[in-house]
């Protein structure tokens, strides 16, 4: 019972201290999204509609930051839901890009900091689920968008591009989870506990 409670407490501390990383990652995505919206918007409607989701993310991030500063940090479920919202917003950007959508969209790079930050904060089993969700959303959006564009999985270039992106997106999550384990072992060793408890 003591070990279970300590493990649960350790997980709660990971969330408490680590959510700053998620907040930072989200800021980078928000700034990138605002730049994309303001620079890439060709009409007032496109500019307005593409800015709204990132302003919503900004409000969310302010809320989470305020809770953190007030020592009322988000719990695991809230962090998972907010991180999922990030994935959805990024996928919408990729799917609805006016000029290049789906696989041709250059904005898949917004996934990288989110996947990495999530892997640093959450246990590996949650990271695996989150990564698979991200890849599912990205591949699904690319497949649907590819039905109406020349860039699709049917072309050799499209398949190779997808391979590179999937490998490196998976690498971010994998390396993040690996480093999470390393840091957990270091912390336990520093406290005089067994690293493999």
């Amino acid at each position, binding site marked *: 019972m003591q070990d279970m409670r300590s493990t649960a407490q350790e997980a709660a*501390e990971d969330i408490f*201290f*680590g959510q*700053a*990383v998620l907040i*930072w*990652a989200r800021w*980078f*995505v928000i*700034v*990138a999204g605002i*730049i*994309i919206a303001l*620079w*890439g918007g060709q009409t007032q409607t496109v500019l307005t509609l593409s800015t709204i989701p990132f302003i919503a993310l900004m409000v969310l991030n302010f809320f989470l930051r305020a809770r953190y500063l007030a020592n009322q940090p988000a719990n695991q479920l809230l962090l998972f839901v907010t991180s999922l919202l990030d994935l959805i917003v990024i996928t919408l950007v990729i799917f609805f*890009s006016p*000029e*290049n959508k789906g696989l*041709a969209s*250059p*904005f898949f*790079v*917004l996934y*990288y*900091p989110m996947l*990495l*930050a999530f892997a*640093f904060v959450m246990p590996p089993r949650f990271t695996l689920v989150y990564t698979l969700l991200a890849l599912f959303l990205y591949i699904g959006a690319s497949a649907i968008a590819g039905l109406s564009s020349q860039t699709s999985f049917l072309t*050799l*270039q499209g398949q*190779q*591009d997808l*391979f*590179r*992106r999937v*490998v*490196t997106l998976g*690498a*971010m999550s*994998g*390396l*993040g989870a*690996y*480093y999470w384990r*390393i*840091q957990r*072992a*270091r*912390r336990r*060793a*520093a*406290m005089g506990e067994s*690293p493999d408890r």
Partner: protein
Amino acid sequence: MARYKDDSTALFPAEKDDLIYGQGVIINARWIMVGAGLLLVFWRSLLGSASLGEVRISLLLLIGLAVMNFFLYTEVFRKRRSLASVVYLASVVDLAVISCIVVAQGGFTAESFVFYFPAMMALSVAFPLQLIVAYTGVILIVYTSICNNSLIAGAESETNPWLIIIIRLLMIVGVVACSHTYWRVERDRRRRATE
């Protein structure tokens, strides 16, 4: 905790432990890059979608990286500390190889820039802040120059290319920032735990 023979010197002595623990991340990131890179080169060359020169350069660089990584991996496996300068230099080689492959594949239009992300993440959790800033700054300048040269040479994009370049650079900085923030968070947690 693994014990290492204390036969190394470090440019930044206070960060020796970080380098020891972070080296595994760097080595694994490099294996991912080498494995994926070799698969892609074989794929492209067997289907004839890459020029002979591009295949030669890519194979030479990736095999060189694999040999270097194997050497570093055996050092870690034998629980010997690699000289910090060797690890720092190895990361310079990583980033140089990625940059060469990006140049060989067309600069701005080359998709291989995505391999910068795991490489930068790995060094951001192992290196001291001064080096992280230096490496990041150099990569931002190098990649911008590569893209600029290829755009001048005629590379095209339907979306404004400089928008794409800025977003890519911003995400590289984001990955570095998140990695180093996490390193700081964990360092502070360890200090609190031992006080």
